[in-house]
């Protein structure tokens, strides 16, 4: 007997419900909130990774974007920056709250989309592509920097997703892609590389820009990129190396050296790898660092204005 309720969208007006969800998200600190088209997602996501693969009755996918690091973060040492840009925690928190908000306000079953890895696929295969949700919700467009999404107003954002049985009007992807920025096109014309390509420590990026200054091709060695920020292999590698060596001193060194101790510390507090993130490509990206709302101070002012309007 639930079916009529769902068809009636839990008694909610789709547009009004969307406004309420967006207002809630922004009040809680989101920079942008958008709705991805569920049917488009189902078509584009790789088989087994569509929203309906984890929530069969999902009717809307809400993408929530929060601001990236402070402007100062782009200027610190890479070692420090690796652990100071983790704003995705805020995105997940808002997504979690949004799920409860929808269930409380509209009575529609809702979930906070798990941002974690798919146990069967291995540590580097996510349950869902939050990036794809955000792209279809109009929160960013794929960049030459390994498809990291960029938004002309907000720069680089972290994303959280919410799946709900509440029907909400879908947004469209961005009309234009802010990547490459004019300065990047100029550099590409001169040396054949954009800043992100040039400064990548593992040279995982290459691509082409067409005569109109638009992306023609993006080549991304994701595995090399992962070596900088998703070091799931390191711990098993340490153990494997220790087991493989016949030299007891070498074994001790492998197990008790500073790298190993750091790794086991990281494991013990579940706080990631030796380098939380690399982001050298974003350090040199004019959109990520210079978009109007990439400025954390402006973001704060905006957020306070939204809160004040809500009050």
């Amino acid at each position: 007997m639930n079916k009529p309720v769902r068809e009636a969208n839990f008694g909610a007006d789709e547009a009004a419900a969307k406004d309420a969800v967006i207002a809630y998200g922004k009040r809680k600190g989101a920079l942008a909130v958008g709705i991805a088209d569920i049917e488009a997602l189902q078509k584009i996501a790789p088989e087994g990774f569509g929203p309906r693969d984890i929530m069969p009755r999902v009717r809307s996918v809400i993408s929530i974007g929060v601001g990236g690091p402070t402007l100062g973060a782009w200027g610190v040492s890479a070692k420090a920056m690796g652990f100071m840009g983790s704003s995705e925690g805020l995105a997940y928190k808002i997504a979690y709250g949004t799920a409860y908000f929808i269930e409380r306000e509209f009575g529609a079953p809702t979930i906070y989309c798990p941002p974690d890895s798919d146990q069967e696929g291995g540590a580097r295969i996510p349950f869902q592509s939050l990036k794809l949700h955000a792209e279809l919700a109009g929160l960013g467009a794929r960049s030459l920097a390994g498809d990291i999404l960029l938004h002309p107003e907000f720069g680089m954002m972290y994303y959280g997703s919410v799946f709900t049985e509440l029907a909400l009007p879908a947004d469209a992807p961005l009309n234009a892609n802010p990547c490459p920025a004019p300065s990047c096109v100029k550099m590409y014309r001169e040396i054949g590389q954009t800043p992100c390509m040039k400064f990548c420590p593992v040279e995982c990026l290459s691509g082409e820009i067409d005569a109109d200054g638009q992306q023609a091709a993006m080549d991304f060695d994701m595995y090399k990129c992962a070596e900088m920020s998703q070091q799931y292999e390191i711990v098993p590698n340490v153990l494997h190396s220790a087991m493989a060596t016949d030299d007891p001193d070498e074994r001790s060194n492998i197990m008790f050296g500073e790298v190993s101790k750091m790794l086991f510390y990281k494991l013990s507090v579940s706080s990631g790898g030796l380098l939380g993130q690399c982001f050298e490509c974003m350090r040199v990206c004019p959109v990520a660092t210079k978009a109007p709302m990439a400025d954390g101070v402006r973001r704060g002012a905006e957020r306070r204005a939204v809160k004040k309007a809500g009050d």
Partner: protein
Amino acid sequence: MQYPSFGVTQEMIAAYSDLVFGLSNNIQRRRGDPVRRLDYAEIERQRPGTGMSDIEIARRTGLTEYQVRYIRMLEESRRFDVNQYQKLYSLGGGRRYREERYLAPEDRYKASEEAMAVKAALAFDPVQVRDFIEQGVWSGDTVASWLADGAEAHPEAPLTIHDGKTVTYAETLNGARRIAAGFLKLGLRKGDVVALQLPNTPEYLLTYFGLVLAGIVPALMHIVYGPAELKPLLAHARAKAIVTGPGPAGDPAPALLELKSELTALAHVVTVAEAPAGALRWTDIAETPPVEDILDPPVAADPLLLVFTSGTSASPKAVLASNQTALSTIIAAKPLLGLKRDDTIMSVASFTHMFGMMVVHWALACGGALLLLPQFRPDRYAELLDKGKPDVLFTAPAHVAACLQAGLLEDKDLSSVRTAIFSGAVCPPKLAAQFEALIGGKVQQMYGMTEAMCMAVTRPRDGKRVRHGSVGRVIPGQELRVRSPDGARLSPGEEGELQIRGGAVLGRYLDNAEATHAAFADGRWFRTGDLGEIDEKGNVTISGRLKDVVNRGGIKINPADIEAAIDRHPAVVVSAIVPMPDDVLGERLCCFAELLPETALSLEDLCRFLEEDGMPKRRWPEHLEIVEAMPLTPTRKVIKGRLPDPKSNPETSKPDH
């Protein structure tokens, strides 16, 4: 679960790994912007490039989903480079990664096997290390940092003065950077050893500083050594190069080139002279563009220099000094020697000897200039003392004695000398007094040796009795004690073996466990082998060498004062008394003497002279050997081990007198 459970064979892994890896999202190739444009046909067309799920790959390859997953993960583990993140660790705030600037830690810090083997000689007691660090005996300073600091603080001040030409601190640093670059370009790395055999010249100092800037360890080779003497030392030091030039026996470079095939580590022969085929020209190395940023600069605990003391050619005794050990006594003794900024310092000691290198380090420590005398010759020494106007003179007593004996100092103006520091051998008080009367200041004495560097010094405010008759008191950071041959504690004023413990004492002889074992008494006390006493005020008097003692029928005779008396004979240049085996008494006293030209000396004449000098008859030599040239160290001490066996000759022997 094991792979056979999924039906995966090794052959399947070999055949499918690359394909599966490439179809997965590990490698992504996107053309245009189809997702943003919702161009579903294009998205589908590009899916194999943009990354497929395991299910999709399985369908495309004809494998099962689990087989795909297994092969993909195996390949991911195989390809993963766990050390990539290190590329970012050296980036400071706001710096960008550039491949050309990056050198992996394993390359940057890799030391050669030879370097590690040599470095093993820096073996110290952990309790001592803690104490030295906590008490500040060991500092974080390096010779390289002192040179750089000096060049920054007083760039235009002279560091070397030679033949009227000066080389400033800034010029020396720049020249040293070129030398460092030259040797690094040859493939040498921090910790590698380069033998250095040059006289006290600007080239020597530039080479020394260049090597230490790069953390390369100079092994000092006495200038008189020819290829045959160098060979075992180069092998022992694992020297990868030698910098040499014309010496007393000509340029050893051609002969050294022939030795390369026998010395596996020796890769380069560098000469300041015309380079024979196969050798490198020093000037070419010195003209290498200077290195601004040494990738792995030396630190205080790194080896600084390697110095050979004695031992046999089959078992050399080599002392490896670190920056910590070598500079500890420089810092501690600097104020005790009264060194001042801008002092002109003259060293007669060869820079291929630890004494000479200590003088170099003192000059750096006080910002002074080194007045160079390439090699000792009495007339040049006297001339430079007069014309060079040094403020401070480091010399051995024998240098002064030779000049005084030849009357070379009588018409010279030595008033510029504020401090004359005697070291390298026991100094007769009369000699110290005689020289002090000629200079404008005071004579001080220093007690040192390669294994422990500076141990004791007299202080400027000490009275003449102390300054002329002792080597002063132990310096901070070192401890001295006197022990009997059986190790018993001795009272002040009692003669025994001097033993030293402290921050400048060697860790162990390089690859010579036997010598190391023999050299240390309990509790890391190093046995100096010197006989001496310490008075109640701590002043140390050296009376001879333990191994020089002659055991004549159970009576032990220290020959030092007998030698000093014989050296006063007008015909004698220098003498040495050694034991001569004897069937009855075990040992008798044999005197070797080098005479002035056109003079003669018989045993009877010598004994008569000693009798007139008041020497007890039981201490007279019983055999006399005249030698053409006495084997001497750079500080003009007799190398008794190189004297020939005494010949039994009734003409020159008079047992029992």
